[in-house]
């Protein structure tokens, strides 16, 4: 069964190729069949592979499939090698399952779009790239998948490219992540040159042998990888692209910008956790970045008016939790949270997409309300996802995973109280904005009538994801991954739970019980200032605009005024002059040429004779 591993990334790739080539000739039904079917094949293959994987003896469950050599240059031989271990298995399972469900959902939700085939084409390419990324046994192949998902992200954010704002958002996402990608590439090159291999397993083994803990090279490499992860996962300071990325279709936001791609950084750091074990400083930086991001994103989510932006900031915030877990060395907990987050956040996005579609592309929270009775299915599934996000104790998956992270932040090998405190506050804030979202959308007075109910495909997907969101602890993959158990004391766990509960209660009080009070807080001087600050994501866009964009534009303006052109112009003029000088000899007069020829001959003979 394990031999089918190659089929997992190649099935969506095949779907992409079919759609790319025959797009114009396929009907909608055929497009949907190919687009969803290829993901279905990948899911089935993944299931078969998983069965084969579990059939392996429990010790050393690793399977490698080499599909040939890609680049062979000197010592470096990059292979198309698929590497399946517990981590890859979990990632593969999530990507194929969530990918399949979201594609199924899109088959219905995107039905009215004229770029239907193009959408599935890109989405299949994305799924294929993501699978290559998670299954790669070679860093260069991993980088291929990494860039592939970046490309698809760009293409899908700008899916409705006729709108300039969308195109701008796509460019922004691409350029900002590129900063991280460049750092990642440098990091990979550092690793290649130092270790002489690009095979992940071999590389980590050699690193552990050669580099002592805390060595500067290891720290440098880890920090560079971290920079790449930060870019892809929208963490501080490269987080600014994610809110704008919501310009794409909702399924895109669900799949790429919530469930899978933005967690590629988490995956990368988990995959390379051996390296971070050698670089404690880098690990600490990771944790700090995660903590800062989760607070920043959480507070920003609190004041957003756009439903999808709330979810986007929420995603940043949750990924921040994962980074905290990674930073304190509890990468198992990070992956656990990745799994639950993938489920409930894609559920929230999909449900939000249903709401937005039902209200005729209305994104503003304050123009919604009272949808509880009108869209009951959406309400209940959204509620399940929201409960999981807010970590409602005991019944939701999100509770267990977040609890683990908080516990790890307190008691883990590299944990600390400040980290825990940030996480706890973040949990409260999370619960608060989640509640705000739920209460504003589904409770209160109805401002608009929904125009449509989700069809069977969307409903099925929502129900499945909702069931997974509330089913709880069994999604925990740590028994598979191995790693250290974190034994936090009960009070700490209770305190974390209490923080989340407090947030929920606060939300209930503010947005359902006393909405006027919330409005008053928001309109008070301090509240308004905070709101203005937070709604723009703590002003990072403004900052970057000020630091990078404006100077760059200024430089280009300067360049346009020939400051930089000067040297080139001079070069050109020199050449012109030389040309004029040379062309003076090219008179077109045959006799002149003949004379030159004769003079040359005379000179040549003279040299030969009187040398």
């Amino acid at each position, binding site marked *: 069964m394990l031999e089918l591993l190659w089929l997992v990334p190649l099935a969506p790739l095949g779907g992409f190729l079919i759609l790319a080539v025959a797009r114009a000739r396929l009907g909608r039904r055929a497009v949907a069949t190919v687009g969803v079917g290829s993901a279905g094949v990948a899911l089935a293959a993944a299931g078969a592979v998983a069965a084969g994987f579990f059939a392996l003896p429990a010790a050393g469950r690793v399977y490698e499939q080499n599909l040939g050599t890609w680049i062979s240059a000197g010592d470096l031989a990059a292979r198309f090698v698929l590497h399946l271990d517990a981590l890859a298995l979990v990632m593969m399972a999530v990507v194929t399952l969530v990918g399949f469900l979201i594609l199924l959902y899109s088959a219905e939700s995107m039905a009215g779009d004229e770029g239907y085939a193009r959408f599935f084409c890109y989405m299949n390419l994305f799924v294929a790239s993501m699978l290559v990324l998670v299954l790669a046994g070679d860093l260069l192949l991993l980088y291929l998948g990494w860039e592939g998902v970046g490309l698809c992200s760009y293409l899908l954010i700008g899916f409705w490219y006729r709108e300039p704002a969308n195109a701008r958002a796509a460019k922004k996402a691409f350029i900002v992540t590129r900063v991280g990608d460049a750092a990642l590439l440098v990091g990979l090159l550092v690793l290649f040159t130092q270790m002489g291999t690009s095979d992940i397993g071999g590389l980590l083994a050699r690193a552990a042998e050669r580099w002592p803990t805390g060595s500067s090279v290891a720290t440098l490499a880890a920090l560079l990888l971290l920079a790449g992860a930060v870019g892809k996962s929208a963490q501080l300071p490269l987080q600014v692209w994610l809110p704008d990325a919501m310009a794409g279709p909702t399924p895109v936001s669900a799949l790429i910008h919530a469930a899978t791609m933005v967690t590629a950084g988490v995956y990368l750091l988990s995959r390379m956790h051996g390296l971070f074990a050698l670089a404690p400083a880098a690990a600490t930086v990771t944790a700090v970045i995660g903590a800062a991001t989760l607070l920043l994103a959480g507070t920003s989510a609190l004041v957003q008016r756009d439903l999808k932006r709330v979810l986007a900031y929420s995603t940043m915030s949750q990924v921040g939790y994962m980074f905290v877990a990674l930073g304190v060395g509890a990468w198992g907990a990070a992956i656990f949270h990745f799994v639950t987050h993938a489920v409930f956040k894609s559920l929230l996005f999909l449900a939000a997409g249903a709401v937005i579609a039902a209200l005729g592309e209305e994104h503003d929270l304050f123009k919604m309300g009272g949808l509880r009775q009108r869209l009951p299915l959406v309400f209940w599934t959204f509620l399940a996802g929201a409960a999981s996000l807010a970590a409602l104790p005991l019944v939701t998956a999100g509770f267990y995973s977040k609890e683990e992270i908080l516990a790890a932040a307190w008691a883990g090998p590299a944990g600390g109280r400040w980290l825990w405190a940030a996480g706890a506050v973040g949990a409260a804030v999370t619960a608060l904005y989640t509640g705000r979202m739920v209460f504003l959308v589904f409770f209160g007075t109805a401002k608009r009538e929904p125009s449509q109910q989700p069809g069977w495909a969307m409903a099925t997907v929502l129900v499945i994801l909702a069931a997974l969101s509330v089913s709880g602890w069994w999604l925990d993959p740590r028994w598979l991954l191995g790693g250290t158990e974190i034994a936090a004391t009960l009070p700490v766990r209770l305190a974390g739970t209490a923080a989340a509960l407090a947030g929920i209660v606060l939300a209930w009080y503010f947005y359902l019980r006393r909405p006027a009070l919330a409005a008053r807080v928001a309109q008070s001087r301090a509240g308004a200032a905070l709101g203005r600050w937070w709604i723009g994501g703590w002003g990072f866009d403004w900052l970057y605009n000020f630091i990078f964009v404006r100077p760059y534009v200024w430089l280009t303006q300067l360049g346009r005024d020939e400051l930089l052109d000067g040297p080139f112009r001079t070069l050109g003029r020199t050449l012109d002059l030389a040309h004029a000088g040379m062309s003076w000899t090219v008179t077109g007069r045959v006799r002149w040429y003949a004379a030159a020829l004769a003079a040359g001959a005379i000179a040549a*003979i003279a040299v030969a004779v009187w040398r």
Partner: protein
Amino acid sequence: MQGLFYVSAAVAVLATALVVTRRNAAHALLYLVLSLAAVAGMFYALGAPLAAALEVIVYAGAIMVLFVFAVMVLALGREGERQESQWLRPRMWLGPAALAAVLLGELIYVLASGAAAVAGGTPVVVGPQEVGAALFGPYALGAELSSMLLLAGMVAAYHLARRKQMDEKEGER
């Protein structure tokens, strides 16, 4: 034979000098033919009778006739002669004469300094048979290339002549 050689050489040099200085193309042409015939005489004196015959038959008898054709078709006459005297000011000769003189001086110097290597060896008649054997033996490739060159020359001349006709037709329109 020695006498033939030196007389021919003198005639050749004199005739050639006249060729490059004449104003009338037809006269120059006649001197050129004379020069070629004189060179043929030198060839004969040097023991190359076939080359001598070919010099007259092909060079003087065929190639130069093309010039005669050109002169006759162009029909320059007095007008042409006047034009020539305009173009052929004495001043025009300074540079070319200097260049040619320098070149000649160099060549003579080379010959004089390398005289030991050149001297010796009385000319022996090398007959047509030997030349033919050499031409179609070791030089067969060269002969083939020459034939290619002649073919190319023929095609090119034919093409240029055709273009001329087309121009005339266009002119009529």
